[in-house]
């Protein structure tokens, strides 16, 4: 290859706690609607879970998939398939050789519903009643496999697993595949369907979840002094990435270009972020540099901002460490205030929201920010959405995961 291959985004798909599609989700984000609600699963009371709410999926898969698809796919893979179909159709279902088409769908946990349901079957009814598709349904790569089957992707089906950074890492992986010539088009994103008693009990045991049971819609409050943990969400978000010249030649709608990707690991603690944000800031700096930009070019940040007391401050430190005084006046949005935390799908959903922010030139407002935490040294968009400037602009999306995984992606306007 003589010239560097550029990678652009030509399709978007999502099924989230606030909408069954990308347009529905974006409308909800601009309207400041929360997807958090009380859970009506019988296990909430049965196990006396300390957290009784979550940002559950807006549109049930049974409303959009066939009965057989629902039966044969774990909820996490159902969400991935729904989002991938929307993204692929949105891109105009481009013609591509299967050997040049890839699928990269990350997940934090994988098929936990299937695992636990089948464990119940085994204990209550015996091994013969374990569903023959139990293993291919619960494996973490089930979603990338399902998407590759759906679109006929044969260049590779990959499943980055890095807890809550998985979805954005998958987009980064797909970007690299196209850039280095392994594929011409890739469908990439993240999915999670882990609103289940065990993950909730586990996250609650580590005191990571908000326990604001009396007011779920106000529970996810990044940067607010009253924040007390994240709100578990579920869903999937997927984009279609394409080599720029080919996308242009076929007249595709180009939402944004992926300017650069930065990744790092903390090697600090299995769950806690490194408080000074050294690793996270390295990922951000790398993403900006690889995009051939400087911090001054970044006009919007969609932060990881999960609404945990420690994590939000650590990210604020990391952003300042990366961008110094250029952080002042850099509008930061924390969309988890509305969507909750979709774990392995979070980075992918926020990737889609960052792309839409660039495309529509508007940074969405963070909700539930009533009493700004003075430990946060960021210009947080709240109250109302903020217009982004005309001309060539760039935005950054951060995503971090338990285990010390840091992913940052710079998207640019085209």
């Amino acid at each position, binding site marked *: 290859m003589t010239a560097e291959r550029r990678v652009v985004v030509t399709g978007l798909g999502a099924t989230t706690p606030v909408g069954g599609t990308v347009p529905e989700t974006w409308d909800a984000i601009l309207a400041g609607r929360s997807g958090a609600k009380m859970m009506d699963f019988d296990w909430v009371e049965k196990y006396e879970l300390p957290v009784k709410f979550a940002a559950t999926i807006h549109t049930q898969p049974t409303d959009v998939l*066939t009965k057989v698809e629902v*039966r044969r796919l774990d909820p996490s893979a159902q969400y991935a398939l729904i989002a991938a179909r929307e993204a692929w159709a949105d891109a105009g279902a481009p013609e591509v050789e299967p050997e040049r088409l890839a699928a990269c769908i990350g997940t934090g946990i994988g098929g936990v519903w299937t695992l636990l349901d089948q464990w119940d079957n085994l204990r209550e009814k015996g091994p*013969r009643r374990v569903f*023959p*598709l139990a293993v291919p349904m619960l494996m973490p790569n089930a979603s990338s496999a399902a998407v590759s089957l759906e679109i006929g992707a044969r260049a590779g089906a990959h499943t980055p697993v890095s807890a809550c950074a998985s979805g954005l890492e998958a987009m980064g992986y797909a970007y690299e595949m196209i850039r280095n010539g392994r594929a011409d088009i890739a469908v990439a994103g993240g999915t999670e369907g882990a609103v289940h008693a065990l993950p909730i009990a586990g996250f609650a045991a580590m005191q990571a979840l908000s326990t604001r049971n009396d007011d779920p819609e106000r529970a996810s409050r990044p940067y607010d002094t009253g924040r007390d943990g994240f709100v578990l969400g579920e869903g999937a978000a997927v984009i279609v990435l394409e080599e720029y010249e080919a996308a242009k030649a076929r007249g595709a709608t180009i939402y944004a270009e992926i300017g650069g990707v930065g990744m790092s690991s903390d090697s600090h603690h299995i769950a806690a972020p490194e408080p000074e944000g050294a690793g996270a800031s390295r990922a951000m700096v790398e993403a900006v540099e690889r995009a051939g930009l400087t911090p001054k070019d970044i006009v919007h940040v969609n932060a990881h901002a999960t609404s945990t007391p420690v994590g939000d401050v650590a990210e604020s430190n990391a952003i300042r460490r990366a961008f110094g005084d250029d952080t002042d006046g850099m509008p930061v949005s924390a969309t988890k205030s509305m969507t909750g935390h979709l774990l392995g799908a979070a980075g992918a959903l926020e990737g889609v929201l960052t792309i839409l922010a660039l495309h529509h030139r508007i940074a969405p407002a963070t909700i539930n920010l009533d009493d700004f935490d003075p430990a946060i040294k960021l210009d947080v968009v709240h109250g109302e959405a903020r217009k982004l400037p005309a001309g060539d602009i760039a935005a950054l999306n951060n995503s971090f995961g338990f285990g010390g995984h840091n992913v940052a992606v710079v998207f640019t306007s085209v």
Partner: protein
Amino acid sequence: MAQSEQEILEGLAEIVNEETGLDTESVQSEKSFTDDLDIDSLSMMTIVVNAEEKFGVRIPDDEVKNLKTVGDAVSFIAKNQG
């Protein structure tokens, strides 16, 4: 109480529909599970286990490979129903 072969066929067609989405009308006695109905071995195992529950029979794993057509399964179930 034992069911007629017609009742078993109808019940089996419902199980196949549930598992594969195939029309119940397409599930007819002379149809081969693999060649005509395109049912793979994993789906077949699910159908077998669901049929065991529905009809109160035991279909040993060794027997499953002999159930080539829908009619084979109906006869086996009819013969072994308690």
